[in-house]
Each structure stands twice: as structure tokens, then as C-alpha cells.
């Protein structure tokens, strides 16, 4: 049985909560405005004893109340930070959220690069993953299949490339990781040459 995530308020890796959940995708709201995890980064959440891994596929900042239109306020301010200092309510009325493609899960201590049996729960905490965990997650490259197969309502190829770049950066031999990832993509996209080429170009 895995240990649950630390759920104390001081957990620096705790960045938000799931607010919409599907088996293959989740939407999480960040606790801090403008502080979404970077595109392609690895995050995790939990459903019961199962840890669910996701790759950040896009983020947005918008009005908490969708009926309220945001207006420009900084014409006479020198910095955009000054706009927030002059209008402290904004930090409470705007919200940043991000979408993550579910890229696998961990049950019984084993990372599995296929979809979890159930989606994450609403309000489940979302954590960023540290380097050790990212290396463990990327020991096998099968997670690429799940991301590449995600629905095309966001820039999936950009997400694949960003994810591989970020995972390469935590490897002891980043170049070797990228070569292996490139080979994996070549097999996966053997009939989509243009798409393959476009991703490979973004790995540099």
C-alpha cells in the first residue's frame, strides 16, 4: 500500500486541486495566481491508493466569474505588478488553471503507462513531481503513446516535445534520453512523417 501524499499546508509541491476530472484528462485550479506548472511538466494527483500522473498540456488565467469581463487597468502604472498592488482584489477574482493529460499511474509501487481505472476525484490535491520521481516515471517511454494519442483540442505535439525536453533535463545523460525518445517516436509515428519531424525539431 502506497503512502498518501503529504497533505500539510506547508507542502511546497502542492500547487492546486482537481476541479474537473476525466479518466484521460484533468483540469486543476492553482492556489496561486499566474503560477501554473510549466508546459510539459509532470504532475501527480491521487484517487484512493493510486497515484495518477499527468503532463501539463496548457494553462489559462481568467475571471473566476465567467460573467465578468476583465478590463485594462495599467495605463498609468509602470509595471504590471503595480496594477495588482493598486487593485488587490484582482488576486482574488482571477484564477489560473491548467489541463493535464493523464500519462499513467502508479499502483502497488509500480509505474504503469496506461490509464488508471478511475479518474481523479474533484478537489484531489495536485503536486509537482521532483527529479527523482520524474526519472522513475520516464524509465520506460511508453507514456509518450498516451500523450501523443490525446485529443487534438490542444497542441499535443508541442506538449510531447515540451515534456521530453523537461524529462531529458533531469536525466544523468539527457542526450541519450532524447535519442531513445526519438526512436520511440519514430516507431510510433511511422506513418506520420511530418508530425514526427515537427516534434523532433522541437526537441533541440
Amino acid at each position, binding site marked *: 500500500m502506497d503512502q498518501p501524499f503529504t497533505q500539510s499546508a506547508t507542502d511546497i509541491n502542492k500547487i492546486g486541486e482537481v476541479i474537473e476530472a476525466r479518466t484521460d484528462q484533468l483540469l486543476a485550479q492553482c492556489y496561486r495566481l499566474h503560477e501554473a506548472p510549466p508546459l510539459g511538466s509532470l504532475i501527480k494527483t491521487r484517487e484512493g491508493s493510486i497515484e495518477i500522473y499527468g503532463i501539463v498540456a496548457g494553462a489559462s488565467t481568467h475571471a473566476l466569474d465567467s460573467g465578468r469581463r476583465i478590463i485594462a487597468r495599467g495605463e498609468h502604472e509602470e509595471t504590471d505588478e503595480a496594477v495588482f*498592488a493598486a487593485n*488587490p*482584489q484582482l*488576486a*482574488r477574482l482571477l484564477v489560473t488553471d491548467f489541463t493535464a493529460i493523464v500519462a499513467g499511474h502508479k499502483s502497488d509501487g509500480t509505474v504503469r503507462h496506461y490509464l488508471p481505472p478511475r479518474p481523479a476525484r474533484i478537489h484531489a490535491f495536485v503536486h509537482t513531481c521532483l527529479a527523482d520521481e520524474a526519472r522513475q516515471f520516464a524509465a520506460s517511454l511508453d507514456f509518450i503513446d498516451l500523450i501523443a494519442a490525446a485529443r487534438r483540442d490542444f497542441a499535443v505535439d508541442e506538449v510531447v516535445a515540451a515534456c521530453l525536453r523537461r524529462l531529458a533535463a533531469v536525466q544523468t545523460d539527457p542526450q541519450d534520453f532524447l535519442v531513445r525518445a526519438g526512436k520511440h517516436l519514430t516507431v510510433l509515428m511511422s506513418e506520420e512523417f511530418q508530425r514526427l519531424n515537427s516534434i523532433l525539431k522541437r526537441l533541440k
Partner: protein
Amino acid sequence: MPLDFSQTIAQIDSMASRLALTRESRRHKLETAMATMTDHSRNLPALRDRIATAMASRTSTWLAAGLLEGLDLHIAPPSVPNEFTVIAADGSHIDVDRHYAAHCFLINIGLVRLSYGRHPEASLSSSPSLYFNDEDVVLMSPSGGEPPEPIQGPLLGAKRSVDECRALARAATELSGDATTVCLVDGSLILWGLTGAAYPRFVTEALIKGDLIKHFSQIQRLSARHPIGLASYISFPRNTEVVNALRLAICPFDNIDCDRNCPPKARSKPCDTVGGLLDRDIFRHLLKPGERSAFFASLSSIVINLYDPHRICFFYLNTGDEIARIEVPLWTASDKNVLSSTHAIILDQCRRGNGYPVALSEAHEQAVVSSRDREEFWRLTEESLAGKNIFLETSLKSQSKRTRWL
């Protein structure tokens, strides 16, 4: 059926022609008003006494402003404190629905605290309260000699205003630090809905003397510790107390006695030379953007009789977009620093809020109960009661409104 515009348009045209005619006459009235203001500012004590006497003897038809600071002053905007806090409360309610058998109402109070300066900070919240106990939905006469007064309609509006002030007082008490603070509500500090013979005296006493004054005093006590003011903001005010003071200035009779000197049947009165003007017409002319007027006292009987020790004063403020009326208790008005900060901070709030104090507008956003929320509220009520096997009757009229059949 849609409105028949072919009939309405002709009526709109005649209304526009009528307004064009009255514009010229208003210009004359405004000139008279401004000249009267200038003349009487030179001998303010005489006019002050004349107004005070007329109001005390109740011989004037017109409710005139008490002159405390001056008449035609226009005071430039002071600088905003480096560190300050604004607390604003606003409410909204779901009234008792007489077509519905569950006798209850809901008051939702939005509360906002905005701090500016080195550590800008905001807190926004709303707290709904459902009133349903027998003793909560009526006001009882203390002697038991009069029938209980159900809290609904305008009385619920007044109760909501009291609850807004309660929320302000509570939030002000919880403040830490000693930054200059303005506590702000929308509308009047005077519960005009309770005036006249509309309600028995025990109702006004319970709401004003029993509750409202207690909350005002709670905020006033804090003012001993750090600079804190209480104010209400009235957008597009329709008051005429300053114009009425000018009527009394113009009145040629030594002893003001409207009924005797100018019987109601008289075709025109000398003071009609400024009649029809609103205070905001005068102050639009007098105040440059950012300036405030002198502060005046409300001499209305509700304030005199029930608001003690909080005499309500008011001043007008040119926010740059409109002439707003700001009401403050005398303890806020008579503390020069607090009055000056209140002036500066409310003006600053209007600038930050595109013409209306941003803290009030956010408090309103927190409080607002949409028509969808109302429907959901009644649906949940029905569902919850049905869960306990309580089935309530609704009127057929109410059902017909919900289902617009063809």
C-alpha cells in the same frame, strides 16, 4: 405581448419637448441658487439660526440641511494616506414569498476588505442567513399591546441595511494594525423606509435604537484607537436639503411658516425661484473634480429622534464622473483628519472602480442573489422539506408564473 411602440413614440416625443422647455427655466433657477449661496455665505450664522428655528418649530414644509461647516465651500482633494484599508458591506435578499407556504427570508451580506500600501491585500466573502423561526420573521411589540410586524418588503430592506452595518462593525473590530480605515456601505445611513406612519414606533426603535446605533457605536469606539471613519455612498442622489436651505434663505417672511405665509393654494411661492433643483445640480456647478462640499447636518426627524448620539451629516463629492452624496456620522465629520482621509479614500476608490467605489462594487458582487439563485433556493427548500415528508402548498398564481404555458 411586446410594448406597442407606435403609441409610445409619440409620448416620448412630447416628453422630450417638455424637458427642452424646462431646461431654460432650470438655468435661471441655478443662477439664482448660486447667487443666494454666495450672498448668504457672508452671513452664515444668521441663516444657520433661521434654518435651525424653522426646523425645530416644524413650520417649514421643506426639510433643510443644517449648516455646520459652511455653505459654498469647495474643498480640494487631500492626498491619500500611504497605508489604508477600506471595508465595504452590501446585501441582497430573498423576500418572503406570500405565494409560498414556507414563511422565511434570506439575507446575503457581501463583505470586502481591501488594504493598500506596502502590503496590498484583499479579502472577499459572503454570508447568507436564512431567517425562519417565528421570533426571527416578525418584530414583536415589547409591551405585547400591538400586533407583531412581519419582516418583509421595505422592512426587510431596512433589516438588511442593519445587517450590513453589523457586518462592517464586526469586520472593523477584527482589523489588526493602525492604518487609516473607512467603513463603507451603499445608500443612506438613514433608514428612510421606516419614516412616516408606515410602521409602529416599536419597529423603528427596535431596528434603529436597538441595533443600528449599537453597530455605529461599535465602530466609533474603535476610532479612539486608530483613525477610522464610517460613510455611506449615494450615487446619483436626488436629495434637496441644501436647495431647501436656499429656499429658507430666499423666503422674504421674517418668521418662516409655510402653511400660513404661502397657503398650499397659492399659485407660486417666492422660494420657487430655486424649486425643482436638486442638490447635485448646485454642486455640479460648484465643485471641481475631486472637490467636496462643506458638510451639512441632516435635520430630519428620524435622525433627531432616533439616531442619538450619531447625528448624521453629509457632503457632496465630485468624483470626476458624478456628484455623489456621502453620509457620515458627526464623529467622522468632526475629526478633521478622518474626514479628510474619508474624502480622499472615497475619491480614490471611485478612481480605482471606474466611477464607483471599487470595494462597494465588489461587496455587491459578493452579495448579489441572481434570479437563478432564487429559483435554486426555492427548489432546494422544497426538496429539503419533501425529504422530511413536509409538502407545502404553493399558490396557483405562483405555479402559473413558473410555467409560462401557451
